C-alpha cells in the first residue's frame, strides 16, 4: 500500500463512493466535487487548525483518511496554512502565520480540536497568549468554523464531571463572545476522518456547510442513534440480552450507550469500517454523545449502581 498519488478524477470518484456509502449522496454530486478542486493555488481555501485542551486524537484520526491521500488534501483541495502536527513552521513563525492570515482578506476555514478553558485561561496557552484569545481572534476572521471531535463539539473529556477549567464547546464559546459564524460540530472521540473530509469538501465546493441538526451536526451522519441501526437490534427486540461479555445478545444491560448516541458507526465503522465497538464485543461507550463520559460505562449485568442518576 504505497501512497501513489492518483489523478484528480480517480480521487474524486473514491471520495464520492465513500460519501454514497456514508449515506450522504444527495448533498454533493460527483460533478459538484470535480468542480471543487479545479482551482489554482490562489483559489484553494486556507485552513487553520488549532488545538485547545485536546489530546491530538482527532488529528491522528484525520491522518487515517483512506479515501484520498492526505497529501492530496494538503496540496489539491486546501491550503493547510497551519496544522500543529504537520506544519514545519515552529515558534514565532506560527504566530506570524496566524496573525497575518487573520489580518489578510484571504479568508480561511477554522478548525478547533479540544475544549476552550474559559474559567482558567492559563490552562491552555500558545505563544504566550491564552487559547481563549486565539480562538476569539481566529473564529472572528473565519469564513466557517469546524468543531472537530467531541471535546470541541459537545464537551467530552475536558468538560467531564469534576473538571475545573470551565471548558466550553466551540458553539458555546462563539455564543458567549457574540461571534456569529457558520459552524459545524463533528462529535466522535476521535472524530471520524470521513465526517471531516466530507464537511471540508462541502464548504470548499459550495461555500456553505452541509445541512445541520439543532446541535450543528451534519444530518447525514448524525440523524440516527447507534441503537437505531445496531447489528444486534433484532436481539434487543426479542429481548435477548447478553449477561456477560462474550455471550450472544444485545449489550444494553452491560452498559451500552447506543440508544443515546447519535452517529453513524453502524454504517461507517471505525478505521475505514474495519470495526465498531459493538462488533468488538464491547458496549458502545457513547463517545459521540452529549453525556460522554458517564459516571459508569461497562458494568455487570445485575449492576445496581447504574440506576442511580449520573452525579
Amino acid at each position, binding site marked *: 500500500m504505497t501512497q501513489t498519488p492518483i489523478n484528480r478524477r480517480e480521487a474524486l470518484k473514491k471520495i464520492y463512493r465513500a460519501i454514497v456509502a456514508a449515506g450522504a449522496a444527495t448533498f454533493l454530486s460527483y460533478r459538484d466535487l470535480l468542480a471543487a478542486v479545479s482551482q*489554482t493555488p490562489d483559489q484553494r481555501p486556507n485552513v487553520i487548525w488549532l488545538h485547545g485542551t485536546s489530546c491530538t486524537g482527532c488529528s491522528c484520526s484525520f491522518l487515517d483518511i483512506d479515501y484520498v491521500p492526505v497529501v492530496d488534501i494538503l496540496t*489539491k483541495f486546501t491550503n493547510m496554512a497551519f496544522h500543529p502536527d504537520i506544519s514545519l513552521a515552529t515558534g514565532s513563525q506560527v504566530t506570524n502565520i496566524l496573525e497575518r492570515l487573520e489580518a489578510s482578506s484571504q479568508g480561511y476555514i477554522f478548525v478547533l480540536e479540544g475544549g476552550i478553558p474559559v474559567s482558567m485561561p492559563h*490552562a491552555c496557552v500558545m505563544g504566550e497568549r491564552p487559547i481563549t484569545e486565539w480562538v476569539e481572534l481566529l473564529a472572528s476572521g473565519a469564513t466557517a468554523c469546524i468543531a472537530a471531535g467531541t471535546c470541541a463539539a459537545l464537551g467530552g473529556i*475536558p468538560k467531564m464531571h469534576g*473538571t475545573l477549567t470551565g471548558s466550553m464547546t466551540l458553539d458555546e464559546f462563539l455564543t458567549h463572545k457574540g461571534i456569529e459564524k457558520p459552524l459545524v460540530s463533528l462529535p466522535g472521540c476521535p472524530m471520524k476522518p470521513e465526517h471531516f473530509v466530507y464537511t471540508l469538501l462541502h464548504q470548499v465546493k459550495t461555500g456553505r456547510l452541509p445541512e445541520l441538526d439543532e446541535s450543528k451536526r451534519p444530518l447525514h451522519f448524525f440523524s440516527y442513534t447507534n441503537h437505531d441501526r445496531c447489528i444486534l437490534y433484532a436481539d434487543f427486540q426479542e429481548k435477548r440480552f447478553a449477561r456477560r461479555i462474550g455471550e450472544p445478545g444485545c449489550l444494553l444491560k452491560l452498559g451500552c450507550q447506543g440508544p443515546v448516541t447519535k452517529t453513524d458507526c453502524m454504517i461507517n465503522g471505525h478505521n475505514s469500517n474495519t470495526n465498531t465497538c459493538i462488533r468488538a464485543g464491547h458496549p458502545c461507550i457513547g463517545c459521540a454523545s452529549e453525556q460522554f463520559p458517564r459516571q459508569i460505562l461497562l458494568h455487570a449485568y445485575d449492576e445496581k449502581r447504574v440506576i442511580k442518576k449520573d452525579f
Partner: protein
Amino acid sequence: MTRIEGHLRFETRVENGMVMDAHCSGEMFRGIEAALIGHDARVAQQVTQRVCGVCPYAHAEAASLALEAAMGIRPNSNGQLLRNLIVGAYQLQDYLLHFYTLCALDFIDVTAVLDYKGSDAGLIGLREWVASELVSKKIFPAAPFLPRYEADYLQDKELNHTAIRHYLDALPMMANLHRMVAIFGAKAPHPVTIEAGGVTTVPTVDTLMHYHSLLAKVEPFIKQSFFNDVVAVAKAFKGYFREGKGYGNLLSYAYFPDQYGANHMTAGGATIGGRYTPLDIQKVTEDHRYSYYANQPDKDLRPMDVRRLEPIDYERYKQEHGKPQGKYSWTRSPRYAGEVMEVGPAARVVNTYKAGTNPQLTELVDRLNRELGISIEDYPSVMGRHLSRYIMSHLTIDRLKRDLALVEPGKLAYEERGVPKNAQGMGLTEATRGGLAHWIETDNEGRIANYELIVPTTWNISPRDADGRPGAVEKMLIGTRLRDPENPMELTRIVRSTDPCMACSVH
C-alpha cells in the same frame, strides 16, 4: 513548538552561540486525575486513554493493569496475546508517526523535491505543487511545508528523494497499523476493548487472517524503508550521537510480556551513572514546587500522596510569571531515587542491553554499533533515540508474528470480575515515548477514590525540582552550541528526539 503532541514552550538563554539555561513549560491542563474521583473504577480505562490521542493504548493498558492488580487477577493467555497485538501495532504506528510525520523533515530537505528528475508520480506531483505554490500570491506558499527553520539539512539529493517518498508512504502505512489495532481494539485512536480482565473481542480465524495480511504489508516497510532512512540520517548526522545527552540516567518498566505475563521484550530498571539496577518502584517521588499547583507540601511526595491537585488561579499564574524563581509549568517533577531520569526508547534499549534479558536485542544492538561505529553509551542522544525506535520496531514486529500464531480462535479473551471495593492497584507499562504508571484506589462502592498517573513526558519535560535541578530535556538543551540562533534547529531536534507528549504529561 509544533510537531509534537500538545502545547510545549521552551525558553533558552543563549550566550556566544551556546545555550546557558533552558526552561520547558507544559502549557495545557485538564485536571483529569481529580475529575475521575467518584466515577466507576472501569471508567478510568476509557477516560485516561483520552489523556493522549497519540499513545492511548498505553493508558488503556496501564489502567487495566492497575485495576487488575486491585482485583488480584491477570488476563488469560488469549487476553494477553490480543492486548499485545493491539498495543504492538499501535506502537509501530506511533514510531512511524514520530519519525516521518514529526521528525524527518528536521533532517530531510523537503525542497530537494524541486530537483527531482525521476519518474515517481508522487514526487513529480509534489515537485509541481511546490513549484506552483512558490509562484502564487499566497502569504505563505507551500504551507504546511514552508516556512521552516533554515538549517544544515541532508545534502545527498537521492537520499532526500527516497526519504520524501517514504514520508508519503508512511501515511497509509500508519492507517494500516491503526486498522490492525481496530481489528481487536474496535478503533484507533482510543481502542475500547482493553478492559481489566482481558480484551472483550473474541478472535476468529477471519480476524486473525486480516491482521496477518496487514502485518505482512507493514513488515517490509519497517525493516527496509524505515531501517534505511534511520541509518542514512544517522550516518549523515553522526554528531547527533553526542547532542542532547542530558544526565544519561535511564528508567524503564518491564514491557511486552509473553502470553503468560512473563519474559518481557524489554527490561525494567534504572541506569544511573552507567550502572544498571532492577526496578524498585518505591523509589519514585514527585515535586511540584515549580509547577502551577497550590498543594503543600510540594516536594518528595509519593504517588497517591496528593488526593486532589489544586491548580493555581489566573491571577496567581500571572504573578508567578513575573517572579524570577516562579512556577513555570503544568508538568510536575518525578524523580527516581532522587535522580532526574530520562525515559523512552533509549532507556528501554540500554536497560535491556545491560540487563542481558533479550539476546535478540543484544545481537541487533551489537550489529548496529559495529555498522555505525558507536557504543551503548551513545544511545541517550538525539540520534541514539531515533535508532532505538527502529530497534524497538524491529523487535515488536517479530513478537507480533509470534503472538499472532499463538492466539486460539473462538476462545474468550476476557474474564469477568466485579469492580473491587476499597482496593488499590498499580499498573506499569511503556508507551513508545517511555515508562507509564497508573495508580488506582477505590471506595466502598467500587468508585474511584484517588487516581494518579506518572507519564513518560512528565519525566522528560519536567521543570526544576524542589532542589532546583533542571528536568531531563532542560539538561539536554543546556550546553548546546547553535550554528544560527535565529534558526535554532539543534534545539528542536533535541526536544523532538524525546517525542514529547504534552497532553499526556500534564493530563
